[in-house]
């Protein structure tokens, strides 16, 4: 049983179906997955504990919901300097299999399986925004450390769910929204906010799949091997699919297939440095919270950045 909070459509859902089909094929029908979409079994917030207690065997977990229980795994949501999906996914995958984070998962009664990503963070706005200075005083919907950083740059942060953003942009409650290309398209936000500032900022990656520890230990050695291999392959598959979706979404929004197209502004070199500087503070906040809890955030961060560099080189 696999519990997912989201609907059974979109790239992520397709990738999960691929995972299930491959698992079935590679284990000769030994391991089959039954999906429970749309939080019909467990809501997004409860999936970690639900999988830990065996309500579902597998589930989609979101680090944001458990800032303390999965404090280390929340590293994936930090605005680090990398907007490549393949690099990011591989780095977080290796890091989450490292001893420190694996222990965190184990405490929750689960084992980390593999990862998703939202893709790089962009900004979609009602009015033209070309520089970071333009953000000053704007009402922006943003989440987590990205919101903290934007706040430092002078924006006013509003928290609301993605589904409500369309109307909020339309009526002027919001000036901008932190989002990803494919989601801008899916929620049709380009209709009411035709300007995009391409931040190509870090990604949200504290967002993956976990399996109940007992379920996993019940697998035969052979199946365990297949399962682990597939978890790794999932990263490549997802990165490929997501990059394609993101590109297509951007292209279709720019060309304006349905109405006027959007205008995309790139960030200047100077602004890029400023953004990274502001992000560094949010990253420091996280390491400070980790050390408060007796963990070694610095070391984990260094490891993470090293992995990112390694994969960038391999690309």
């Amino acid at each position, binding site marked *: 049983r696999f519990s997912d909070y989201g609907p059974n459509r979109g790239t992520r859902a397709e990738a999960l179906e691929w995972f299930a089909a491959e698992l079935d094929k590679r284990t000769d029908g030994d391991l089959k997955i039954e999906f429970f979409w*749309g939080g019909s*079994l467990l809501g997004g917030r*409860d999936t970690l*504990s*639900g999988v830990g207690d065996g309500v579902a065997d597998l589930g989609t977990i979101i680090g944001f919901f458990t800032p303390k229980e999965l404090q280390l795994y929340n590293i994936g949501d930090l605005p680090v300097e990398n907007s490549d999906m393949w690099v990011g996914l591989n780095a977080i995958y290796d890091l989450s299999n490292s001893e420190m984070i694996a222990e965190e998962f184990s405490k929750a009664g689960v084992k980390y399986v593999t990862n998703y990503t939202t893709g790089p963070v962009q900004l979609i706005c009602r009015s033209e925004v070309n520089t970071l200075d333009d953000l000053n005083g704007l009402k922006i919907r943003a989440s987590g450390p990205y919101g903290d950083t934007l706040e430092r740059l002078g924006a006013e942060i509003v928290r609301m769910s993605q589904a409500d953003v369309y*109307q909020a942009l339309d009526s002027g409650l919001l000036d901008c929204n932190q989002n990803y290309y494919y989601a801008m398209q899916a929620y049709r936000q380009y209709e009411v906010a035709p300007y995009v500032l391409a931040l190509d900022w870090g990604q949200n990656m504290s967002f993956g799949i976990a399996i109940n520890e007992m379920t996993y230990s019940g697998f035969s050695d052979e199946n365990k091997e297949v399962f682990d291999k597939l978890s790794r392959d999932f990263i490549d598959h997802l990165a490929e699919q997501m990059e394609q979706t993101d590109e297509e979404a951007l292209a279709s929004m720019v060309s304006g297939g349905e109405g006027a197209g959007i205008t995309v502004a790139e960030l200047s070199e100077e602004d890029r440095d400023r953004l990274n500087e502001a992000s560094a503070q949010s990253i420091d906040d996280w390491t400070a919270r980790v050390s408060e809890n007796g963990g070694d955030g610095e070391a984990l961060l260094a490891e993470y950045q090293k992995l990112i560099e390694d994969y960038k080189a391999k690309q």
Partner: protein
Amino acid sequence: MEPTLLAGCVVAAVLILLALRVPIAYAIGACAAAGLLLFFSWRPGGDLNLLGGMRPALRLIGSNTFAFVHNYPLSMIPLFIGLGHVAYHAEITTDLYRSLRILLRKLPGGLAMASVSGCAGFSAITGSSVACAAAMGRIAVPEMLQYGYHPRLAAGSVAAGGTLGSLIPPSLLFVIYAIFTEQSVNGLFLAGVIPGLLSLVGFLLTILIWCMLKPQHAPRQQFDEVVDRAAAIRGLWPACVLFLIVVGGIYWGIFTPTEAAAVSLVVAILIGLARKKLNWSALIDSGAETVRQTAMIFMVALAAKLFTAFISLTRITPLALDWLESLDPPFYLVMIAIVVFYLVIGMFLDSIGILVLTLPFTVPIMSNYGVDLIWFGVIVIKLLEIGLITPPIGLNIFVIKSVTPRSVTLSEVFKGAAAFLTLDLLVLILLLLVPALSLWLPQSAFG
């Protein structure tokens, strides 16, 4: 134990307990909880291991119940219930009725028409049909009897008019439907407006025909008071303001539905205080009635959440769908079966109970046929509304009976309401045949 067999036993147990007058919340909740426990402890082909099943079952029960209560969008429910109670205590309802009575006095059956229109107006402020029938029944039925209206027309028109409560937004039933089907509350609210008004037209026509056939049932009124049209129109504004906040706010995207609920409640309180109609103790009373009703509704919905989780775990719905697919009946047959089904169970069960018990089964069937779930929502709510005035259990009928003088008998109220059913069924058929009546408004708002 086989999950399908288990599901069958649980559903049977629920029905037996319901028949024995066990409250809906307890019956569904206890059976679903027991079902979950057994599901996790008794794998097919394995032995019963209650201890092993305890952990996942408790986790699921704990997570689902808490998440259901600890919930932002659902705060709409207490806020909208509060709006209805405050509007009643602030006499916004009474003013509405008095104004309509004056404005419609020249029409045949003018008082009955004012009552039905007053119901529609109050529907725009309150989320529940029963509240609507109770409030209007208390004000309008004695008035009509006093002016020599036939008890059947007097009681029947308000019982029928009350059923607009859940169709015209705000509407608790739409909120509950939205939660269990993951549809947009905005969309459902807007979708209900035209069908609600259409039903109103049906009721007005019924009164017209009734008065033409039997003019002696509705004598022309001679008012003692001076007719002041301007004052009558002024009496309408509080209700109009509240309706604009809810429907206009959602249509133009100024608020989310939750915000509309909160703002309109605050505005209703302010109107009541400003016009000195609402004092401290009336405010507390409306609050107390609101939280009690909220607690009651949430216990049912929370139990239903567990029931839904249990049903989805047993995979009984996909199995049923496969079976249905193998039969491959044409869509209209399925739709007729569903309409009849809701009409029949609407005769016996309470609306919220019906919604939460049936949606896990009917919605997957509908989405399998690619039906727009917003339209289906309007149809289901309309069917439930009809159920409120059909015998033997018609909640609106009982409500009207309990707030009117003893001289009006229960069968008199049922007979009166039955007259309104004919045109109401025509409206239902119209809604079934022309989905655009429901879908046009939400589509024009959201593109």
